[in-house]
C-alpha cells in the first residue's frame, strides 16, 4: 500500500481543485469535495499505516527522475516509514475533523467554497511535506502551506487586522524560509543529492562545517514555521483567521511541519550537535516565555496560541536532547488535544461572538459537551494523567534528564517551571471561561453547538486520552511505529517523572484556583500586579520588532515611495507634461485650414527647388 502513498497529497489536491474551481457544478456544494477529500486521505493514511506496521522501518521511496537540471538531480517520489505514516494519519484525522466542524462553523459564510478548497489544499501540502522523498519536493509543499496560511489567516480580508495578520504570517515565515532554502542547498549540494534518504545517509561523512551550516539554516525555516523564538510573533496574530483554521495550523499542519522536518532529517542534526544545542536554547526561551505570555492573555484564542508556541518548544526541546521519539509523541498528542481545544474555543466563540475571556464565565451549564471535551484538552495540556499530554511531556523531560549535561539540565529545569505555569494558565482559562458566573452580553442566548461541531470534539477528546493511555506501560504502540533511530534516546516514561510533573502542574492549578476562589469575578493574573504588564505584552518582542524592523522598513518604504513619486514619477510625469507642452506648440500648426498647410508645403517646395538649383549652379 505504500506504493500508493502519493495518493495522500494527490487526493486532497484534487478535492481542492474541484472545490475551488468546480464547486458550482458539484451536487451538494463545496462541502462534498472538502470532506470527501479528507475522508479519502484518511483512508489512504490508514492503509499506509497498516502497511508500515508490517514493514516497520523505511518502507518505500518511489523516486522518479525529474527534469535534468545539469546540477544536482531533483527527484519526485514518496518516502514512507512508520513515522511518516503516523504523522500522515494525524494530519488526515485533524483535517477531517476540521472539515466536518467547518461545515457548521462556517455556515452562511459567503466565502465558504474558497475556504474549504484552501483547507483541502493546505492538507494536501502538509501531506506532501510528510511523504515527499526529496528536499525540494518537500519545499514545494512547505511553500504551498505558507501560501494557504496566508489565504486562510486573511479569510476575513474585509477586516484590517485580518489582512495585517496574514501579511505578518507570510513575511515572518518567509524570513525563516529563506534560510531554509539555503539550508537545502547546503545539504543537497554537500551530499550530491536532494533525496532525503541520501542526505541523511551522507550526513555523518560530510564536512562538519557543511552539516552545521545546513542544519542551522534549516533551523531558520523550522523556527519560522513552528513559531519558535525569535520568529514566533506571527502565530498569536494568526488567530485573526477562522477558528478551525487555527486548529488546523496549530495542531496538525503548519507548526507541526517544522518539528517534522527536523525529525525527518534527524541524522543531520545528530551529526551537528551545535545545531541541537541552539535548538535546545531556543526551545527553553520559547517554552517559558510563551507560557508566561499565555498566563496574562485575555483573548481565549491567543491563550491557546501562546500555549501552542510553548508546547512546540517542548517538542523542539525533546528533539534537541536526542529524545527523538518523545518529541514526535508529544507532537501527536499535542495535535489531538490542541485541535480539540481550538475547536472547543471555536464552539464558544461562535455562540458568544467574542474571544475575550473577561466576557465569558459560567458556560459549563449551557455548553456541557464543549465544557467536558475542553476539560479533557485542558488536562492534557496541563500534563495531568490520565490524559495523553501528561505522558508525552514527561517523556520529553525524561529524555532531557537522561541526556544530561548543561543542555539536558537546563531543558529539564525550564520544562518543570513551564509545567507549573502551564497548569496555572490552563486553569485560568477554564475558570475564566466555563466556571463562575457569566460576565458577557446578557442578550446572547447561550446554547450548545450543533452535533456536527460537537462530534469532532468528542472524537478528538477520545484521541487526547487514548494516545497516552495505551502508552503508559511501555509506550508500545508509539514505539512500534516510530522506532528508535540510531543515536537517539529510547522512549521512556518514568513513574517518578509523571508524579513529579503532575504535582508541579497541580501546584499551578491550585494557585489559580485559590486566587479565583478568593475573588471569583477577578482575573487571577491580577495577583501578579505590575508584573502582568510585560507578560501581556509578550515581553515586548512585537514592540521591539516594530521599532527595530517594521518602523525602519516602513520609513524606508515611505522614502522609496517619495523618491518614486517625486523623483522617478516626476520624470515620467514631467516628460508627459513636456510632451504636452511641446505638442501644444505643434498643435497650433494644426489649424484645420488647408491654406496654412499649403503655405507650408509651398514654402518647403520652394526651399527644395532653391537649394537644388543653387547646388546645380554651383
Amino acid at each position, binding site marked *: 500500500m505504500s506504493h500508493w502513498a502519493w495518493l495522500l497529497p494527490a487526493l486532497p489536491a484534487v478535492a481542492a481543485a474541484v472545490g475551488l474551481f468546480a464547486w458550482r457544478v458539484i451536487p451538494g456544494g463545496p462541502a462534498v469535495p472538502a470532506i470527501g477529500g479528507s475522508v479519502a486521505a484518511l483512508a489512504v493514511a490508514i492503509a499506509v499505516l497498516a502497511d508500515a506496521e508490517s514493514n516497520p522501518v523505511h518502507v518505500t521511496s518511489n523516486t522518479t527522475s525529474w527534469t535534468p537540471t545539469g546540477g544536482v538531480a531533483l527527484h519526485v517520489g514518496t518516502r514512507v516509514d512508520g513515522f511518516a505514516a503516523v504523522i500522515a494519519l494525524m494530519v488526515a484525522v485533524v483535517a477531517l475533523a476540521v472539515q466536518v466542524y467547518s461545515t457548521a462553523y462556517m455556515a452562511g459564510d459567503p466565502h465558504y467554497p474558497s475556504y474549504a478548497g484552501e483547507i483541502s489544499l493546505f492538507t494536501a501540502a502538509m501531506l506532501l511535506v510528510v511523504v515527499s522523498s526529496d528536499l525540494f519536493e518537500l519545499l514545494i509543499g512547505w511553500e504551498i502551506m505558507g501560501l494557504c496560511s496566508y489565504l486562510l489567516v486573511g479569510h476575513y480580508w474585509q477586516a484590517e487586522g485580518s489582512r495585517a495578520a496574514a501579511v505578518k504570517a507570510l513575511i515572518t515565515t518567509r524570513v525563516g524560509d529563506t534560510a531554509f532554502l539555503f539550508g537545502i542547498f547546503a545539504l543537497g549540494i554537500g551530499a550530491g543529492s536532494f533525496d532525503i534518504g541520501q542526505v541523511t545517509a551522507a550526513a555523518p561523512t560530510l564536512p562538519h562545517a557543511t552539516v552545521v551550516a545546513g542544519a542551522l539554516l534549516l533551523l531558520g525555516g523550522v523556527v519560522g514555521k513552528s513559531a519558535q523564538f525569535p520568529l514566533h510573533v506571527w502565530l498569536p496574530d494568526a488567530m485573526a483567521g477562522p477558528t478551525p483554521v487555527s486548529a488546523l495550523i496549530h495542531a496538525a499542519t503548519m507548526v507541526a511541519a517544522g518539528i517534522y522536518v527536523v525529525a525527518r532529517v534527524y541524522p543531520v542534526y545528530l551529526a551537528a550537535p551545535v545545531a541541537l544545542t541552539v535548538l535546545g536554547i531556543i526551545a527553553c526561551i520559547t517554552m517559558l516565555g510563551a507560557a508566561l505570555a499565555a498566563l496574562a492573555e485575555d483573548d481565549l484564542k491567543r491563550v491557546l496560541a501562546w500555549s501552542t508556541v510553548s508546547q512546540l518548544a517542548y517538542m523542539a526541546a525533546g528533539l534537541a536532547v536526542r529524545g527523538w521519539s518523545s518529541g514526535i509523541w508529544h507532537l501527536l498528542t499535542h495535535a489531538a488535544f490542541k485541535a480539540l481545544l481550538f475547536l472547543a474555543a471555536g464552539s464558544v466563540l461562535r455562540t458568544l461572538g467574542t474571544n475575550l475571556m473577561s466576557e465569558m464565565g459560567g458556560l459549563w451549564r449551557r455548553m456541557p459537551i464543549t465544557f467536558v471535551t475542553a476539560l479533557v484538552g485542558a488536562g492534557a495540556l496541563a500534563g495531568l494523567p490520565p490524559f495523553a499530554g501528561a505522558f508525552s511531556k514527561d517523556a520529553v523531560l525524561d529524555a532531557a534528564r537522561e541526556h544530561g549535561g548543561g543542555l539536558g539540565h537546563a531543558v529539564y529545569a525550564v520544562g518543570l517551571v513551564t509545567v507549573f505555569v502551564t497548569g496555572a494558565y490552563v486553569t485560568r482559562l477554564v475558570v475564566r471561561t466555563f466556571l463562575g458566573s457569566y460576565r458577557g452580553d446578557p442578550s446572547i442566548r447561550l446554547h450548545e453547538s450543533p452535533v456536527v461541531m460537537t462530534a469532532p470534539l468528542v472524537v478528538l477528546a477520545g484521541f487526547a486520552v487514548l494516545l497516552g493511555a495505551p502508552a503508559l506501560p511501555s509506550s508500545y504502540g508509539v514505539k512500534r511505529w516510530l522506532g528508535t533511530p540510531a543515536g537517539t534516546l529510547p522512549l521512556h516514561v518514568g513513574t517518578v517523572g509523571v508524579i513529579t510533573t503532575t504535582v508541579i502542574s497541580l501546584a499551578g492549578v491550585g494557585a489559580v484556583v485559590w486566587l479565583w476562589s478568593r475573588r471569583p469575578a477577578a482575573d487571577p493574573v491580577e495577583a501578579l500586579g505590575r508584573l502582568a504588564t510585560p507578560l501581556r505584552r509578550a515581553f515586548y518582542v512585537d514592540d521591539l520588532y516594530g521599532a527595530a524592523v517594521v518602523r525602519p522598513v516602513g520609513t524606508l518604504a515611505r522614502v522609496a515611495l517619495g523618491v518614486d513619486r517625486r523623483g522617478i514619477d516626476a520624470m515620467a510625469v514631467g516628460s508627459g507634461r513636456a510632451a504636452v507642452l511641446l505638442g501644444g506648440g505643434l498643435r497650433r500648426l494644426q489649424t484645420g485650414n488647408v491654406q496654412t498647410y499649403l*503655405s507650408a508645403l509651398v514654402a518647403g517646395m520652394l526651399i527644395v527647388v*532653391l537649394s537644388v538649383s543653387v547646388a546645380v549652379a554651383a
Partner: protein
Amino acid sequence: MTGADVVFGLLGIVCLAAALLVVTARNVIHAALWLVVCFGALAGCYLVLTAEFVAWVQVLIYIGAVVVLMLFGAMLTRAPIGRQQPLDSTNRPVAALAGLATAGILVTLVVASFKGAYVDIHHTEVGDGRVLGTAVFRYFVLAFEVASVLLLAALVGAIVLTRSDRD
C-alpha cells in the same frame, strides 16, 4: 524679335493681367470672367505656338465648360453682387510672399536655363486634328483609356457627392 514674339507677348500680357485679376478680384464672378479672358488669351498663345487643336479644346472645355461650371457653382453658392464677404483670407502676406518667391525662382530658373532657345514656329508641324488624333490614338491610346476611366470615376463621384441624402 519677330511678329510671333510680339503677338505672343501681347497675348501674354493680357493673359497675365487677367490671371492677376483672377486672383485679386473682389468678386468671385468677376474672377471667373477674368478667367475667361485669361484662358482666351492663353488659347491665342497656343495658336501662336501652332497648337491649333489644343487651343480650341482650351476654348471648348475651359471657357465653354469649366468656367461655365464655375460660374454656375459660384451662383449656386450665392455669390453676392458687390463685396459683402471678403474673398481673401487673412494670410495675404504669406500668400504674396509665396507667390513672389515662386515667380522669382521659376523665372530665374527658366531664363537661366533656356536663354536663347528659339522656337521655329514656321517649320513645325501644325497641331491640328489629324496630328493630335494620330498621337492620341496611336501612341497614347492607353493613357487615353485611363483618362476616360478617370472621367467616368469623376462623373460618378460628383453625382454621389452632390446627391442629397433625402432621395
